[in-house]
């Protein structure tokens, strides 16, 4: 009991900052109450309507719709529904907004029949597709967002692929994974020698080096990324230097920004400390006597490194790689700034759907998939390398 009290603050913190957001994300990725809440009568009435047929709904459904809408307009909820349905069918947003003014004036008890009046108010009410979309998305728990997240969509005929020219998310998932792997790889290559130096140099020198490693942490991410822009652009520092050295001609300056190379360079730099720190702390614990023992037994420097030192530093590589990989698949600011069109990640789309399109359901589904991928990779790592083989120090 006392132990529970002692960890209570931590428990509450973890709950608020971790469990609840993740739970709410999972919840949002399937939650779809809005249609049946806003149009309860219509949804019920549409139950009997055959969405696969070529007949428009009958008058009863139109009447139910008017009854629902009058209530919804009063509560100013019809436009919200329009935005929701617009994710599925372009044009719904303005249809609901525009028809709101006219529908408001109708009295459901006296002004019928409504079918022709509605079609008069907006052509959309005379289209099969409108009613199909409402019916298809009237379920309270939907797989629609997940289907959207993998470039498919929920239709009255079941799940179908998005048209080819709108397929982007799967591609971005694959690109995110692939580039994160490359970034993790280049972090390993760069971080290993630095960590080795840090772990083996005399204290005084290694402390100084450590400060240089940690320095980037003390500047904001945005500043660092913007600095890379100045470095990498065609009239930037790197190109200027190369031209000045005569290594590239002025007319053939390297394009190392606004593409994948830019993203890889900038993100490798930004994530490098997350690779160095675990590597360093593992290497620090490898006693010098191991290498001395190996050399005394006749092993050359290389053999000693490769057979003795390297295997013992693997836990640090593992820990750093997991850290860098997970951080990297979630990055969006840096790819946004230096990634151009080919260097952006799935997280950029998540950000778009959170702040621009407000399609939070899709954003949550994308986030959930990303979380799933991380968990699968973690599991695979455990199977292949063994999670005990991860050490942060």
């Amino acid at each position, binding site marked *: 009991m006392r132990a529970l009290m002692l960890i209570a603050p931590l428990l509450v913190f973890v709950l608020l900052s971790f469990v609840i957001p993740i739970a709410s994300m999972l919840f949002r990725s399937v939650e779809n109450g809005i249609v049946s809440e806003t149009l309860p009568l219509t949804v019920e009435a549409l139950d009997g309507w055959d969405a696969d047929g070529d007949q428009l709904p009958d008058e009863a459904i139109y009447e139910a719709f008017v009854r629902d809408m009058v209530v919804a307009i009063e509560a100013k909820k019809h436009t919200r529904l329009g*935005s929701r349905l617009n994710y599925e069918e372009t044009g719904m947003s303005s249809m609901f*907004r525009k028809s709101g003014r006219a529908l408001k004036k109708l009295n459901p008890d006296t002004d019928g029949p409504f079918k022709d009046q509605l079609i008069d108010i907006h052509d959309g009410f005379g289209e099969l597709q409108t009613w199909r979309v409402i019916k298809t998305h009237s379920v309270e728990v939907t797989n629609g967002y997940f289907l959207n997240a993998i470039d498919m969509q929920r239709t009255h005929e079941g799940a179908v692929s998005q048209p080819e020219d709108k397929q982007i998310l799967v591609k971005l998932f694959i690109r995110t994974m692939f580039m994160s792997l490359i970034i993790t790889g280049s972090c390993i290559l760069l971080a290993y020698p630095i960590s080795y130096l840090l772990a083996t140099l005399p204290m005084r020198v290694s402390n100084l080096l450590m400060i240089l490693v940690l320095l980037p942490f003390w500047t904001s991410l945005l500043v660092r990324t913007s600095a890379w822009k100045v470095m990498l652009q065609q009239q930037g520092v790197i190109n200027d230097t190369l031209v000045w050295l005569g290594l590239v001609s002025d007319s053939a300056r390297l394009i190392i920004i606004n593409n994948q190379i830019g993203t890889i360079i900038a993100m490798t730099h930004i994530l490098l400390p997350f690779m160095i720190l675990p590597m360093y702390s593992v290497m620090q614990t490898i006693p010098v006597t191991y290498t001395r023992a190996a050399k005394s037994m006749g092993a050359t420097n290389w053999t000693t490194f490769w057979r003795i030192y390297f295997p013992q530093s693997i836990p640090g590589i593992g820990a750093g790689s997991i850290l860098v990989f997970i951080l990297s698949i979630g990055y969006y600011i840096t790819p946004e700034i230096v990634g151009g069109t080919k260097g952006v990640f799935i997280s950029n789309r998540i950000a*778009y759907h959170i702040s621009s399109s407000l399609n939070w359901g899709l954003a949550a589904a994308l986030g959930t998939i990303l979380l799933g991928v991380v968990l699968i990779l973690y599991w695979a790592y455990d199977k292949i390398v063994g999670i005990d083989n991860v050490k942060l120090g």
Partner: protein
Amino acid sequence: MKLKNTLLMAAACVTAAGGAMAEEMTIVSWGGAYSKSQLKAYHEPYSAKSGVTILNDDSSAEAVAKLRAMNEAGNVTWDVVDVVASDAIRLCDEGLALEIDADTQLAAAPDGTSASEDFGDLLVSDCFIPQIVYSTTFGYRTDMVGDTPPTDICAVFDLDAYPGKRALEKRPINNVEWALLCDGVAKDDVYDVLETEEGQNRALAKLDTIKDSVVWWSAGADTPQLLADGEIVMGSTYNGRLFSVIEEQKQPVAMLWDAQVFDLDGWIIPAGLSEERQKRALDYIMFATDTQRLADQAKYISYGPARASSAPLVGQHAELGIEMAPHMPTDPNNAQNTFLYNYEFWADYRDDIDAKFQAWLAK
């Protein structure tokens, strides 16, 4: 549903501590020179008059998402929010912004013209009080275009006459309109064409012709910087940003006003404020959007006031001392060929075309 309520309650508890205090209001805007112009033209005189302390928050870029989150948590901490018109429409659709009656809740012009008439067409949403007219237009490097500076928007698509990189915003809005215009579509038909699959493909096909020469920007400061660095020969951005590159930084950059796209920026009041806060927010809005105040803002930044009655009052730049009227997007010389952003269209088609646009970008 129960889970959701619990979550919302928990979130509400967390944020409850940060509620606004009496005689203070939080105004959200874009930061930078723009916020400064509002501080000088609106906030300072309003605080002097009313004694209300104004807190600034530079979160307009994420305003819609944040307002939605605050609304779900049941604790809105913002009192007045500066947003672009399309965001105002979305906020209104989502029920996140307060509907305003222009004639009773906004100041009439000095000559008695009602506010709704004074703002006219610019009242594009029931929740939106327009403040400025800005335009998205092109600037070019005068030293990189030879003896024939561009005068036509289609110079953007003319790689032969104007080789080099050009900067375009990393979203379809404006770009597809310009593409269609330069592909021979009449100005009035642009949105009709864009409604169709073929029209969208046609716009992307036109953009495809310059795709390899485009630097895609996502922050308004990008293009001015790229122009100043000589990374690009021309690029689109907000006209006020170009003004400061040209007049304040004296860079070799000039404006290409042709086919500039007018857009609006203005205020909304979040829905769900307490009566007292709402009253204060309305009082601020009444003051800050009157004829004189809107004209005052133009002393600090080159955006046109949204009221017809303010235009004659626009004077000189407060620091540079130059006449501001010729730098306004609405100035007759600049506005010979303009394009009006179609809010209805983009509210419907934004997600659809954006998906296609992103897929095209990734190709």
